[in-house]
C-alpha cells in the first residue's frame, strides 16, 4: 500500500461525494460554520488535485485546528460531551481532507467517515435515517474501491456498481448477524446526545406546561395490547404523582421517591400490554393502574409509579400487566398520607371557605367528591387550552372568576379543594387515551395526550382516581383533544403541516397510519431488538435457548449464505470440462490401467487406433467409443452423454478387470 501513494481521481471524487452524504444528516445539530469549513476544505483539496494550490503547511494546519476548537467552544460551550465530540469528529473528518496525500491518508478518512455515520445514528435512528445511511456507506465503499484501482480506470460508475453490489451481497449475512449476534448491556456509561429537545412531562406542573405539551404531536409511546384494547376512557397512563403545592405549581414530593412498593391487592381482570417508549430523558415509565412488570424493567415507587434506575434516553420496550380494579393501600393508612393533605400556608381564601362549606355539608368523603364533580359539571366551566392568565390566588380565580381552563386547572383545583376539606388527595400526571392504529392493533400516545387527574384516599377503600375534566369536557376523554377543542380551533394550530391535522382526509390518514405502523415495526423489531427482545425471538424459534445450538445455526446459515454467494460469483460450473471431455478422461483412465497412455499431442482417433492395436481383443469397443466421441465432438452429432457412457461401460466390461497400475 505504501508503494502506491497517489490518490486516483475517481477515489477523490467519490470521497468528496461521500463526505457530503456523511455530513448531511449531521446538519440538524451541527453549527452552521461547519458547512463553510467543509466547502473551504473541499475546494482547497480540489485545487490541490488540480495542482493550483499546495497542501497546508504545519502553521496553517495548527491554525485551522485551533480555529475549529474555538468554534466548537463558542457554539457548544464545551469541548467534552457527545455533542462537542461529534462536532469535533466531523471537523476532523473535514480537515483530514486537506492532509490527504497518500492512499493511507485516504483510508483514514474513509474509516473516519464510517464513524461519522455511526455517530449520526445516535442522534437520529428512524427508518428513513437508516435507509439514508446506506448512501454514505456505499459512497465510502466506492471511494475505497476507487483507491484500489490501478490508475488506468477513469470512469466513475464501475466502482459505484461494484460497491453497491458488495453492499447488496452483504445484506443477507448482515441480517443473520443482526438476529443472532448476542446483545449485551452497555460496558460503560457514555454521554448521550442532549439536544434532542425532548418534550414531555416534567416532575413539576404548572397549568401552562401541559398547555405547552398539547401543542406537540411528538410521539410519547406506543402500547400494544395482547387482548382487546380497552375503551379510550379507561386509558389513564400514569407517569407520576404531584403531591406538593406551593400556590402555583404542583411538584413531586420527596416522599414519593422512596423505592418501597406500596401495599395493594389484585382484583378483577388483568390487562397485558407492551409499551415502546420514546426517549423522555426522565426515569419514569408509563403504566395503567396498577402496573406490574419484570424486576429488571423498573421498580414500583411509593406512589404506584414505575421508575427506572437510569433515564430513558433511547427507545425502550417493556411489558406490563395491569390490574385496573386493584385496591390500593386500602387496608391500612399509608405512612406518608400527611403529604397528601399539604397546602400552602396562605392564599386562596375563597376556596378554603368553599371547602369548609362542603365539608360541613357532606361529612362523607364520597359525597363530597361527588359534590365537587357535580359542581364542575353544573356550573359554566369551559374546557380550553387558552385560559385567561391567573393572578396570585390562582385556585380562587379559576374556581370562581374565570372558570376557563383545561385538565391541569381542574385537577389542581379539585385536589386543592379536597385537601382543604381534609381528604387526602394528589394530582396524577400522565397521558390519557391515545390513537388506535387499526392496522397494527396498537395505541399511539402523543404529547398532546398529556393529562392530569386526581386521586383521593379513603379509609378502607384506598386510593381512588377521579377525573374532573370528564365532567367539563367528556369528549376530551372519550374522543380526544381534537374533539374537545373542535369549537376552539386550537388543535395544533401552530403546526399547519402536521398530518395529524388532516385526519378527515381518509387517504391521507390511511397513509399516515401505514407510516406510523412501519415506524412502530421499526421501533419494535429493529431499534428495540436488544437483550430481552432478542432472547424472546430466539426462544420462539429454537424453543430453549442453547447458545451452542445458536452458534451452530449461525455458522451453518452463514456458511450456506456465503456458499450460495460464492456459487453465484464464481460460477464453477462454467469452468467444468464438458461431458464429452469428462467421458474421454474416464476412457483414458480405463486404458491407462492397461498401460495404454495418451500423449498430450495425440488426437482421439490416433490414440484409439494405437490402443486398438495394443488391445486387439477390445478393439471393437475402443473404436466404438472413439467414433462416438468423434461424432459428438467434431462431427456436430447430437451431444449425448448416455451414448458415451454406454460405449464406455461396454468397454469396461470387455476389458479384464484390473485395479490400476
Amino acid at each position: 500500500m505504501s508503494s502506491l501513494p497517489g490518490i486516483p481521481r475517481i477515489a477523490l471524487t467519490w470521497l468528496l461525494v461521500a463526505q457530503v452524504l456523511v455530513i448531511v444528516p449531521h446538519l440538524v445539530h451541527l453549527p452552521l460554520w461547519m458547512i463553510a469549513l467543509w466547502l473551504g476544505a473541499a475546494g482547497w483539496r480540489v485545487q490541490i488535485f488540480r495542482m493550483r494550490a499546495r497542501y497546508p503547511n504545519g502553521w496553517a494546519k495548527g491554525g485551522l485546528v485551533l480555529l475549529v476548537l474555538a468554534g466548537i467552544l463558542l457554539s457548544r460551550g464545551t469541548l467534552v460531551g457527545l455533542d462537542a465530540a461529534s462536532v469535533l469528529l466531523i471537523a476532523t473528518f473535514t480537515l483530514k481532507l486537506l492532509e490527504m496525500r497518500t492512499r493511507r491518508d485516504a483510508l483514514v478518512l474513509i474509516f473516519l467517515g464510517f464513524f461519522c455515520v455511526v455517530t449520526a445514528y445516535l442522534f437520529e435512528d428512524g427508518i428513513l435515517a437508516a435507509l439514508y445511511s446506506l448512501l454514505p456507506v456505499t459512497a465510502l465503499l466506492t471511494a475505497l474501491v476507487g483507491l484500489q484501482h490501478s490508475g488506468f480506470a477513469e470512469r466513475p460508475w464501475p466502482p459505484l456498481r461494484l460497491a453497491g453490489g458488495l453492499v447488496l451481497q452483504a445484506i443477507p449475512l448482515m441480517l443473520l448477524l443482526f438476529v443472532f449476534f448476542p446483545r449485551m448491556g452497555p460496558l460503560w456509561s457514555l454521554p448521550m446526545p442532549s439536544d434532542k429537545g425532548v418534550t414531555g412531562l416534567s416532575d413539576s406542573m404548572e397549568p401552562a406546561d401541559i398547555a405547552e405539551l398539547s401543542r406537540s404531536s411528538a410521539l410519547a409511546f406506543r402500547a400494544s395490547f395482547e387482548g382487546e384494547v380497552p375503551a379510550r376512557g379507561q386509558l389513564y397512563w400514569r407517569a407520576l404523582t404531584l403531591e406538593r403545592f406551593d400556590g402555583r405549581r404542583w411538584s413531586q414530593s420527596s416522599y414519593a421517591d422512596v423505592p418501597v412498593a406500596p401495599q395493594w391487592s389484585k382484583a378483577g381482570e388483568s390487562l397485558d400490554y407492551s409499551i415502546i417508549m420514546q426517549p423522555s430523558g426522565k426515569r419514569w415509565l408509563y403504566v395503567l393502574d396498577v402496573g406490574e412488570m419484570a424486576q429488571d424493567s423498573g421498580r414500583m415507587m411509593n406512589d404506584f409509579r414505575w421508575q427506572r434506575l437510569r433515564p430513558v434516553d433511547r427507545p425502550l420496550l417493556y411489558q406490563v400487566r395491569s390490574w385496573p380494579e386493584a385496591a390500593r393501600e386500602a387496608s391500612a393508612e399509608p405512612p406518608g398520607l400527611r403529604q397528601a393533605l399539604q397546602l400552602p400556608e396562605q392564599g386562596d381564601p375563597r376556596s378554603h371557605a368553599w371547602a369548609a362549606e362542603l365539608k360541613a355539608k357532606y361529612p362523607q368523603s364520597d359525597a363530597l367528591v361527588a359534590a365537587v364533580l357535580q359542581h364542575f359539571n353544573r356550573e359554566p366551566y369551559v374546557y380550553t387550552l387558552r385560559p385567561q392568565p391567573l393572578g396570585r390566588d390562582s385556585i380562587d380565580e379559576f374556581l370562581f372568576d374565570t372558570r376557563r381552563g383545561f385538565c391541569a386547572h381542574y385537577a389542581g383545583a379539585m385536589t386543592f379543594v379536597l385537601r382543604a376539606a381534609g381528604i387526602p388527595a394528589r394530582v396524577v400526571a400522565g397521558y390519557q387515551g391515545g390513537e388506535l392504529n387499526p392496522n397494527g392493533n396498537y395505541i399511539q400516545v402523543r404529547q398532546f395526550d398529556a393529562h392530569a387527574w386526581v386521586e383521593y384516599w379513603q379509609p378502607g377503600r384506598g386510593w381512588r382516581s377521579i377525573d374532573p375534566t370528564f365532567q367539563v369536557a367528556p369528549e376530551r376523554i372519550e374522543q380526544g383533544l381534537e374533539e374537545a377543542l373542535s369549537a376552539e380551533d386550537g388543535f395544533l394550530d401552530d403546526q399547519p403541516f402536521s398530518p395529524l391535522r388532516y385526519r378527515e382526509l381518509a387517504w391521507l390518514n390511511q397513509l399516515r397510519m401505514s407510516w406510523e405502523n412501519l415506524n412502530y415495526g421499526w421501533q419494535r423489531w429493529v431499534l428495540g431488538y436488544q437483550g430481552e427482545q432478542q432472547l424472546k425471538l430466539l426462544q420462539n424459534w429454537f424453543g430453549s435457548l442453547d447458545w451452542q445450538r445458536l452458534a451452530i445455526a449461525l455458522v451453518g446459515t452463514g456458511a450456506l449464505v456465503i456458499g450460495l454467494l460464492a456459487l453465484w460469483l464464481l460460477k464453477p460450473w462454467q469452468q467444468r470440462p464438458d461431458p464429452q471431455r469428462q467421458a474421454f478422461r474416464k476412457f483414458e483412465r480405463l486404458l491407462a490401467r492397461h498401460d495404454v497412455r495418451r500423449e498430450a499431442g495425440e488426437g482421439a482417433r490416433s490414440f484409439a487406433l494405437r490402443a486398438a492395436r495394443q488391445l486387439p481383443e477390445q478393439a471393437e469397443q475402443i473404436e466404438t467409443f472413439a467414433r462416438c466421441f468423434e461424432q459428438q465432438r467434431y462431427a456436430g452429432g447430437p451431444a449425448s452423454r448416455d451414448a458415451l457412457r454406454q460405449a464406455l461401460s461396454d468397454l469396461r466390461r470387455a476389458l479384464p478387470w484390473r485395479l490400476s497400475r
Partner: protein
Amino acid sequence: MRTKLDACLDSVNQVLLGKEAQVRLALTCLLARGHLLIEDLPGMGKTTLSHALARVLGLSFQRIQFTSDLLPGDILGTSVFDKDSGQFVFHPGPIFAELVLADEINRATPKSQSALLEAMEEGQVTIEGATRPLPEPFFVIATQNPVSSGGTFALPESQLDRFLMRLSLGYPAQAAERALLLGDARRDLLPRMESILDHAELARLQAQVPKVRASDALIDYVLRLVEATRSQPQFAWGLSPRASLALLAAARAWALLAERDYVIPEDVQAVLPSVVGHRLRERADPTGHGGGSLVQWLLREVPAL
C-alpha cells in the same frame, strides 16, 4: 466425387512413385486454393509432380524457369506493337495458365519474384495500367533449391507466408526407386495421363472445402497451437492470423480428401508441418530456416483434446 479424387491420387502416384503423402498434401493444397512451395534438390520429381497434377485435374500448365535475368515482363507478359493493326497488343506471359510451375524461384531477382507473388496474392495482374484477371482456378507451384548457392535470392519471410504449404519430396524409398529404374521414363507417362476432373467438378470440390465442419473443440485446438507459438520462448515469432486461417483451410481440405465432412485434430496434425514449417523459426537459430523441430514440438506438446 470423392472417388474421383482418389482416382486422381492414384493416377499421380503411378507417375511419382513412393510419394503418396506428398501427393496427397499437394492435392490438399490445391483444394484449399493455396499455393505450394516445394523445396528440394533438383531431380527429385518436382516438375513431374506439378505436371501430373495439372494433367489429372485438367488444368492448363505452364512452366517458368526462374533465372537471375528473368524480368517481370517475362512472367506477366508484355504489350507488343502490332504493325498490322497499328496498336499495342498484349501478349500474355506464362502466368496466364491455370497451373504455373515457377521453377527455382530463388534464382530470380526479388523484383521478378514479387511480380509472381503479387499475382498469386491478388489473382490478377496489372500491366501498363491495365488489370487483367488470372484464370480461375489458378495455382502456383514454386520450387526452390535448399542449398543456397551463389546468386540466389532467398524468399523473405513475408513472401513465404503467401504459400499455403511448403513440401519437400525427399529421396524415394528403395523399392520405389527400383520401380523407377525398371519402369518407363516417368515423363513419357505424362502425356498418356488422362484428366479425371473437369473445371466444374474441381470448382465444386473447392467450394466444399470451407463447408467442412470445424467444431468448437477443433477450433480450440488450432488456437492452442497458434497460441503456443506466440507464447513459448523457443519461437522467434508467433504464427500470424493468416497462418491460422491457412492451417484451418488446409485441415478442412485434408478432411475432405479423407472423405469426412468434419475436421479432427489428426487432420490438423497431418497438414501442420507443411503449413507452418516455413512460417516458424527458432529463436536460438534466427538465421536458419525451417521450424522442423518446432513443429515436432507443437505436435508433441500441445494438447490435442
